[in-house]
């Protein structure tokens, strides 16, 4: 079992979700986050004064899946979230020790 944690641009979230629907994946959690990597920040204006916003809004996707499904999921995210500009985001793959389905109490790979 692995977890795919992807931080991507908010405007790409819908496209990624549509692509993921074509694949087999058990479920998905999306949260609104703020942050930055190499992206320099946004310039904004307030009553004539410019200022820089460094923490930029992004979307975090979290998907826990069986090992075999992970490469396809990562590939789908990369393909649909890439714009070629700085700020496209990052994907991390983490190992998962265990998973439990709340409704039935199933554990392990059965829970996914």
């Amino acid at each position, binding site marked *: 079992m692995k977890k795919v944690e992807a931080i991507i641009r908010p405007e790409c979230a819908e496209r990624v979700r549509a692509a993921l629907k074509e694949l087999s994946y058990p479920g998905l959690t999306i949260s609104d986050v703020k942050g930055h990597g190499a992206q320099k920040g946004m310039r*904004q204006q*307030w*009553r*004539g004064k410019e*200022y820089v916003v460094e923490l930029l809004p992004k979307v975090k996707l979290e998907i826990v899946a069986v090992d075999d499904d992970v490469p396809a999921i990562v590939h789908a995210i990369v393909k649909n979230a890439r714009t070629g500009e700085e700020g496209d985001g990052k994907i991390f793959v983490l190992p998962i020790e265990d998973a439990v389905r709340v409704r039935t109490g199933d554990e392990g790979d059965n829970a996914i």
Partner: protein
Amino acid sequence: WLGGIGALDFAGGTVVHISSGAAALAAALVIGRRRDYGSAVLSSHNLPLTILGAAILWFGWFGFNAASALAAHGLAASAFVTTHLAAAAATLSWVGIEWLHGGKPTSLGAASGCVAGLVAITPAAGFVGAMPAVIIGLLAGLVCYGAVQLKWRAAYDDSLDVVGIHGAGGTLGALATGVFASTAVNPDGADGLLFGNPGQVGTQAVAVLATIGYAFVVSFILLKLVDVVVGLRVTGEEEEIGLDQSQHSEAAYGA
């Protein structure tokens, strides 16, 4: 006293706006800048509410200006029209200069321009005609925008720009009344510079300076007095936590 020397102020442009601008400057200087001035992100807290507020102001200002005619007749209608024209013109000119100077027009700029126009026309509303109202509005957008830029240079913390919009706008309006006032519009008023009475501008200037001087000095003294007696500003921790919690134990946006 100001009425006695012949100063024209239809709806309180001098006594309300200039004095509030001067008092605000005194307050900004006495209280000081917020702790994270310079590093805080400047964005508006709630732009939709700001715009709604400006709309309510525009609507309510008709009561403020037009009703200063003290009856529902021709003069009130005239003041109504000048108020509306000035607000619209100032909105355009503020957005225009912001576009040229700042790079992009903003809705906050439009809201600020509208208020600047309303402020500037306040002393003039029942004394000037329609075209002068447009001119006053256009100038208000430019002058008040400039005043706000000066504020950034002077680095005092006036987050709602009372000094820049009300102080500068009121001053512009008071002096412009001295230029554009016409007894053809209001027989109970006086004529201004363009109608053969250059002295009116001088009278207006005296009114402006007297108001600024009085409001600033007295406010400064009173604020200092309060500071000495009970302390004006909250502590650093209280400021950090936020006044909602520290002063009222109240959460404005849910727990």
